[in-house]
């Protein structure tokens, strides 16, 4: 197919189509409206369906219905809309239905702004809705990475019967970069013999359900979910180490912020500060290993986020008191500049060297 220049939101949509997703239910919200419009045009071309729901609440429940019928399905939104979807997401988890949910994050709380943000990290990685659960969360940093992660997201959703988040921000959604849609061999996945599609030809009635009134039964179900999460933790952690081998200091950043941080790291290295970066790609499960491997040798960590400090809590848990963990964040749609990050790196390293 060769390289094409596309907007991030469009790449998310096209990558989903390439991953075999033919069904989309959603509701418009800035800064991800291009995704909705792209799907409206594209899905009929592949014999699929785009339906604009009356609300985000309805959209996620349409996703629930479609997923219960065994098809690959997705929805997308931005922060305030994703808050509205939380009820449905908890039900998807409870009923163990696979689906992919995109959050192109914008500044909050409340109606907030429409500028880029990473302030829904807690919501995505620590639950968001009610109940004991986790959702795999992937955060691409480049448009090309979206292509791979979308395929992974649908495969993981089907393999573990779980909703999966792709977490981006307004910058990732709005920017353009060349991407290539490479065809990839379909993963071997278990059959969806649980789908409720009518019983004709497939035996007795089945039930898609998240209600378990018997506490013993519900505890068993929770234990089953937790076992599933252990497997996901074992198999689905993704991260990138950048110049960490000889590093005295490590910056931790994900998504678009990691790209800004990379520039700052290059500048810091020019000044003689040995600094590298750990970039979590899976935000849950959080990549703990690269911290276990570095926390003995480095002097300190600096977490940079477009939030008031959310991922930094997971970084501190992984570093576990071995070394100081500093934080630099911007909020409200403000984007940290490479100069700001460089200044923080220099500060961490004890001033100009």
């Amino acid at each position, binding site marked *: 197919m060769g*390289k094409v*220049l596309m907007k991030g939101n469009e790449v998310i949509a096209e990558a989903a189509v390439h991953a075999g997703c033919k069904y989309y239910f959603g509701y418009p919200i*800035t*800064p991800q409206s291009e995704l909705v419009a792209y799907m409206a045009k594209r899905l009929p071309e592949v014999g699929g369906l785009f339906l604009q729901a009356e609300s985000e609440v309805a959209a996620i429940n349409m996703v629930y219905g479609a997923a219960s019928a065994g098809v690959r399905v997705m929805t997308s939104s931005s922060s305030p809309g994703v808050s509205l979807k939380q009820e449905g997401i908890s039900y998807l988890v409870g009923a163990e239905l696979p689906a992919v949910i995109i959050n192109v994050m914008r500044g909050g709380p409340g109606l907030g*702004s*429409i*500028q880029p943000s990473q302030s829904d990290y807690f919501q995505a990685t620590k639950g968001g809705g009610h109940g004991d659960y986790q959702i795999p969360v992937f955060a691409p940093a480049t448009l090309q990475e979206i292509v791979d992660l979308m395929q992974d997201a649908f495969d993981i959703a089907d393999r573990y019967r779980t909703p999966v988040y792709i977490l981006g921000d*307004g*910058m990732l959604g*709005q*920017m*353009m*970069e*060349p991407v290539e849609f490479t065809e990839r061999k379909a993963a071997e996945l278990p059959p969806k013999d649980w789908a409720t599609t009518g019983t004709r030809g497939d035996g007795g009635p089945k039930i898609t359900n998240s209600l378990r009134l018997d506490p013993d039964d519900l505890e068993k179900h929770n234990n089953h979910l937790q076992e599933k999460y252990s497997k996901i933790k074992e198999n689905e952690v993704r991260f990138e180490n950048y110049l960490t081998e000889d590093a005295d200091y490590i910056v931790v950043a994900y998504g*678009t912020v990691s*790209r*800004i941080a*990379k*520039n700052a790291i*290059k500048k810091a290295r020019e000044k003689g500060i040995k600094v590298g970066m750990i970039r979590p790609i899976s935000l849950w499960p959080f990549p703990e290993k690269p911290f276990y491997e570095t926390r003995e040798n480095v002097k300190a960590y600096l977490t940079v986020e477009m939030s008031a400090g959310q991922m930094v809590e997971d970084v501190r848990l992984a570093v576990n008191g071995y070394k100081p963990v500093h934080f630099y964040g911007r909020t409200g749609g403000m*984007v940290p*500049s*490479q*100069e700001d990050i460089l200044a923080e790196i220099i500060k961490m390293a004890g001033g100009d060297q």
Partner: protein
Amino acid sequence: MLHEIIIAGFGGQGVMSMGQLLAYSGMHEDKQVSWLPSYGPEQRGGTANCSVIISDEPVGSPVISHPSVAIVLNKPSFDKFEPLVSPGGILIVNSSLVDKKSSRDDITVIEVPASEIANEIGEPKVANSVILGTFLKLTNAVSPDSIIEALKKVLPERRHNLIPANKVALEKGAELINK
């Protein structure tokens, strides 16, 4: 080679498509590119800008704090980006719409009377291509041929009649530097 370009002007002045044209051309030449728009209410009527990076290396941050080149098409953009151009960088000013003078002596300032030149060509729509011509002559970021190739892709078929005028505009813009 690394060009970090900010193009800024009124919404509707073609700022976004000018940036996209550069990104397409860079991609056409197998360079690494990114295009990042400012988005939101400021697109409508206010000042809009986009950041374009053209590089031999994979693009790091798509966000540019200090552009190597700033192309400013209106007065508010001049005020905002003139101080941010990195030392040794280039400021290209659409002097048809901006009557301000830069006081910086650590950057190259080029004034392009884009509208006047476009009117001379007989096609007011190609003012931005005049500026692109100047920009390309100064930086060699991409070749004018790649811009024409990109135009063929970006412009709808019914607008392809504008391509010859764009070609002339690119040349006229370049000539400003030869003089």
